[in-house]
């Protein structure tokens, strides 16, 4: 990408990757089965979504779809909306985010602080309801909006193919054997997975989804019952695992208590996939270097049930 000058944009990417040594010991993993976590909360907008948002915005600025007075619009109950709002403030274009009314209070506040406009869709219809509403709004006023379309825009995948994938390869000195990511738009898995499989065709990709359509893991989709993102490519995924909400929450809390890393709920889901992969390798007497993506930090979930009430058995 060329011509990136905004401070917020320059700070995106090259996130820390570190081994979860204590978590591995706690789960009785041998030393040659390693779990590493890529900490995407280190991006300036607070999540992995800064990467696809920047790629989408950069491409639109270069093509003239943005910067000519149009408003960037997309549906996002979560982090992508925050990234767009941040970039809208940084580059000076208006942003409208369509999100379900059930999105957390923190998210709505942060969007407003960046100056974005919010349109709330029916909470009962979830994120798919927001997707349908934004498509309707764009169809009604095509000249007014640039539809960023995080679920269908190929620049989402490109961001990870050019960024996340090469970073992981370099940061592990080419030793990564397994890549684990939870599925939302699926951009992280598809872009990163494609790059890593070119770098080393033996690398195994592991995708994690919620066990049930009715779940509390922010950012994730239950693909069998949701609108499947157009950018999804099933040929990139070697192994499909699922994680239920309680396990995702428990692992997220364990990560904070054992490694001092305060992550969001989808990280817990990714960790369940990393642990299952590690266990399988250890039981088979094989070694491995597993890299899992931590999409965001835990502070945006303080108003939800994640950090209060039920205590995990630790």
């Amino acid at each position, binding site marked *: 990408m060329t011509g990136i000058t905004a401070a917020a944009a320059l700070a995106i990417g090259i996130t820390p990757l570190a081994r979860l040594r204590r978590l591995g010991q706690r789960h009785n993993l041998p030393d040659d089965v390693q779990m590493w976590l890529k900490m995407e909360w280190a991006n300036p907008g607070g999540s992995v979504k800064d990467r696809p948002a920047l790629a989408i915005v950069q491409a639109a600025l270069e093509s003239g779809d943005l910067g000519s007075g149009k408003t960037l619009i997309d549906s996002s109950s979560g982090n992508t909306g925050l990234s767009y709002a941040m970039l809208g403030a940084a580059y000076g274009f208006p942003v409208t985010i369509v999100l379900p009314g*059930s999105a957390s209070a923190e998210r709505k506040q942060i969007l407003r602080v960046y100056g974005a406009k919010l349109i709330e869709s029916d909470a009962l219809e979830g994120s798919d*309801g927001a997707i349908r509403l934004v498509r309707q709004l764009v169809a009604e006023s095509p000249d007014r909006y640039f539809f960023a379309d995080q679920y269908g825009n190929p620049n989402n995948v490109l961001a990870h193919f050019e960024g996340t994938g090469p970073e992981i390869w370099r940061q592990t000195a080419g030793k990564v054997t397994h890549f684990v990511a939870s599925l939302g738009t699926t951009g992280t898995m598809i872009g990163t997975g494609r790059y890593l499989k070119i770098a080393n065709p033996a690398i195994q990709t592991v995708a994690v989804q919620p066990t049930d359509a009715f779940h509390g893991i922010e950012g994730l989709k239950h693909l069998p019952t949701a609108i499947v993102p157009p950018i999804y490519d099933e040929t990139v995924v070697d192994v499909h695992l699922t994680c239920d909400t309680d396990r995702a929450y428990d692992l997220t809390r364990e990560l904070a208590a054992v490694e001092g890393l305060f992550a969001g*709920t989808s990280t817990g889901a990714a960790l369940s996939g990393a642990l299952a992969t590690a266990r399988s390798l250890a039981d088979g007497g094989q070694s491995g270097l597993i890299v899992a993506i931590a999409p965001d930090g835990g502070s945006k979930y303080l108003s939800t049930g994640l950090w209060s009430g039920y205590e995990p058995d630790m």
Partner: protein
Amino acid sequence: MADAVSTANIVVLIPAPLRRFTNGEAKISSSGATVGELIDTLEASYPGIRDRICEADGRIRRFVNVFVNGANVRSGDGAATTLKAGDEVGIVPAMAGGC
């Protein structure tokens, strides 16, 4: 006198991911003296739905919000919240679950 709580006079709004239990219906009528009893009544008509909403001990799962006439029961009596004829109960994931 008829037992008012056995009459299906409470409107229940069902979120999209749970409609596979209610034959696709987004709005149904049910009954119950409390939120907990309402969920039990729903289970009798739509088996499997209770486990999605509640823990085994009847507490509402931590990622689920139940609203009675717009008020979140989590800040009140939870599953013990009393209901009356004409109430509207909404079941909503605490997070929007998207990207």
